[in-house]
């Protein structure tokens, strides 16, 4: 494409199908204690 550069493809829709395992870190366990940014967490599902 000439006018658009896609930096990252859609992936949230795909994650819905097999998501929700609950193994990911709950946010306050890292640096943040009041200003959660869930998006910087990692998926911990070994089987996805």
């Amino acid at each position, binding site marked *: *494409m*000439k*006018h*658009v*550069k*896609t*930096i*990252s*493809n*859609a*992936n*949230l*829709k795909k*994650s*819905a199908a*097999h*998501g*929700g*395992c*609950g*193994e*990911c*870190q*709950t*946010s*306050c*366990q*890292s*640096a*943040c*204690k*009041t*200003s*959660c*940014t*869930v*998006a*910087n*967490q*990692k*998926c*911990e*599902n070994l089987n996805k």
Partner: protein
Amino acid sequence: MIHKYFLNGYYIVLDVNSGAVHSVDELTYRLLDHVESPTGETCPDGALAALGGEFAAADIEEAYQELRELKNEGTLFTEDDYRAFIDRASTVAPVKALCLHIAHDCNLRCGYCFAGTGEIGGKRSLMSLEVGKKAIDYVVEKSENRRNIEIDFFGGEPLMNFEVVKGIVKYARSLEKEKGKRFRFTVTTNGVLLDDDKMDFINKEMSNVVLSIDGRKEVNDRMRRTVAGGGSYDIIMPKFKKLADSRNQTDYYVRGTFTKYNLDFSKDVLHLADLGFEQTSVEPVVTDPKDDYAISPDDLPAVFKEYERLALAMIERREQGRRFNFFHFMIDLTQGPCVIKRLRGCGSGNEYLAVTPDGDVYPCHQFVGHEEYRMGSVLDGSIDMEIKKRFASSNLYTRKGCADCWAKFYCSGGCCANSYKYAGDIDTPYALACEMEKKRIECAVMMKVDELSGEK
């Protein structure tokens, strides 16, 4: 829904409901002001007329067709059809993380501390090993099939009661094999009592350690004072340096708080980076709006500028081979948590609970002392399922304004405690916090765009 913004020379377009990120040219950026969702086969006349004075019609049409292509492939103007997953996001989930208040006491007197002077409004006390073990039993029992369990040693100041920390770790480890669990420990500390023995133990057992320091000496020492009233910077800085280096500059954070007194907080972050700390976090103070040091709406323009300033400085350093991390700018556009997690948010009151020295359970450390949120006790294994359900059912669609906010899947609805303290309701996000969060996300995504774009 899309969100577009211009920052550091990049025209960035976020497709909110898919998570896609695009970097576009100026023409396309402005075209999006005139195109709701490109359904028509050719570019609408209105758009051609609006932009025709500056851009060639053929180029406008070409850009329009590219937008159509993006929409057709599901990376632009995608719908929010995640309400179908609310049930999965709102389940009363197993408890899998605890914040243990190892001490309701502290050897510093930081002006802004949520815990008052360490005791959180109650009496000064230390958690006994017996209560600590009961807390481990509590989470093992209530975690059901969850394998990963997180234990955060917190307070007050946990190093004031370090033998209990060690005892809890030992006990938890002894249960791992039998119970099929994997414990991950974190400790947060003001650093005053750090010594070689504690550092060795921390390095052996803690997957993360949070070291509290605000930045420049004069900034740190204004708020983070000893009981005698002096500053803490000179005491803690050498210890923090030693600990961070001993962990090879990874798996820790130096974590500061900025207030109205240092709205130029990028200088504090860069000060820490200049000293060699590669994992930094500096976060806005959360406090009563009446406090002198509270950040107010008037301060937002300055705060926004500061986040931008910091982002640009970090890009420059990255290019010079002096890269460092800033927690709030960390973002993974490809592999972050699933959308179910993003609907849920932080997990407080549901998957993540706090435990006081007496064994009382609360939704998180910020709710400790708010009696109406006391959820039970690790001593008798009780848990208030009504409160748990209340927190479990708090998600992006129940939190006011979140469903229509472009930042929803990055932010996940913010901090329940923050909402409760400012609005009296865990489902009413605090607007000031939202504004800062959105700015941070814009900066974080821009930095990623810059990194992945190669040359500008």
